[in-house]
Each structure stands twice: as structure tokens, then as C-alpha cells.
């Protein structure tokens, strides 16, 4: 029931754009996106709720298509600081409680 992320790895030059996809086989209540730098804790980026909304801040945005059970993360005009591993987390309701199931991660490398 782990969501599938694609691609597994991306290498970009500074200023280029990237799209990371997250696909689930289960009905979703929400999708979270996190970024983790090497040796650090994952940091929460944003959450998308049912309703097909699109959210974003700065040059990082995301969309959520609940019918297709997919979400995409968009990084525009990438900066060196965007490097890291990105995880999507899909919320599943189980035993009356909410839990997140994470994808395997997408490693993003931004070169100058």
C-alpha cells in the first residue's frame, strides 16, 4: 500500500524545473509532501486535501487529483537549497485513526 513515486532520482541545473509524481492504489484523504536533507529530519512542505486543490509557496507547488489517486510536486526555477530527497505521504484512515504511508522517495540534486 506504499505510494509509488517517480522518478526515483533527478539531476538538474540551477534554474531548471522539476516534477515529482506520487501515485497510490488506495483512496486518499490527503497527501503530504516532505523534503529531507542528508542526515537531517524530514521537513513538512505542504498538505493537500480532497477536492483536487493546488497549493504552493515560493516556487514549490503541488496538485492532488483524488479521482486518479495521484499528486504531483512542482519545483520551479530550482535553487541549490532545493536539493534533497522528497517524500510524498498518503493519508489512509485505519482503525478510526489517521496514518501516513510514505513513498520510497525521490532524490533531487541541483547543480550550479
Amino acid at each position, binding site marked *: *500500500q*506504499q505510494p509509488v513515486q517517480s522518478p526515483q532520482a533527478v539531476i538538474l541545473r540551477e534554474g531548471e524545473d522539476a516534477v515529482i509524481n506520487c501515485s497510490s492504489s488506495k483512496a486518499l*484523504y*490527503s497527501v*503530504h509532501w*516532505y523534503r529531507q536533507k542528508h542526515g*537531517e*529530519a*524530514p*521537513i*513538512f512542505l*505542504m*498538505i493537500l*486535501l480532497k477536492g483536487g486543490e493546488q497549493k504552493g509557496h515560493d516556487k514549490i507547488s503541488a496538485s492532488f487529483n483524488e479521482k486518479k489517486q495521484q499528486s504531483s510536486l512542482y519545483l520551479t526555477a530550482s535553487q541549490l537549497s532545493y536539493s534533497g530527497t522528497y*517524500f510524498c*505521504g498518503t*493519508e489512509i484512515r*485505519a*482503525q478510526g*485513526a*489517521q*496514518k*501516513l*504511508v*510514505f*513513498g*520510497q*522517495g525521490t532524490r533531487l540534486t541541483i547543480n550550479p
Partner: protein
Amino acid sequence: DVKVTQSSRYLVKRTGEKVFLECVQDMDHENMFWYRQDPGLGLRLIYFSYDVKMKEKGDIPEGYSVSREKKERFSLILESASTNQTSMYLCASSLLGPYGYTFGSGTRLTVV
């Protein structure tokens, strides 16, 4: 800022030992989670709790148990450590509802 503190950054234990990993959060969050992170597998949910003394199995609970006697503290217990439990363990917490998770810095456990 919400802080999630894990008691040890690095831990080395012997096979068969009982191991306790402690996690404390300081923002009155209802939800607490234990994940393990392994290369190529992302973050996998071991156990979670949405209230004091409540616990729910995640996707890989075998060989683990948990304890939540106080709202701010969530302990992960390895009943009899084995080498296949060598991993990075991440604790997280969140408010009930559609909110992001805050992760601790992780405990890298090596079982020899």
C-alpha cells in the same frame, strides 16, 4: 517551534538485547508515530498512537512494541534486537486532523 526530541542519536546494541527508543514532543500533539527508514524503502510505519495508552500497528510491527503512558512521550521497544532491525528510526508527532508531521532527528540503531 514544535520540538520532537529523540533520546539518542546513535545506539549500538547486541543481538537479543531489549532496546528502548524514547521520543518526547513539547506541543501537546495527539498523534505520535514511529517510522524506520532504510535506503530505497522510504519511511515505513511501525506503530502509531492517537491518544494516551492507545496504540495501533503500522505496516511493519513485528518485533516491536510501544508504550504511551503520557501524552508527550512515545517509546519504541525492541523486545529482542536482531541484526535486521539495524536502521534509522524516526519519531514524529502531529495534531489530530489535516496537519503536517514534525519529525525528530532520528536514532541510528546498529545491532551487532
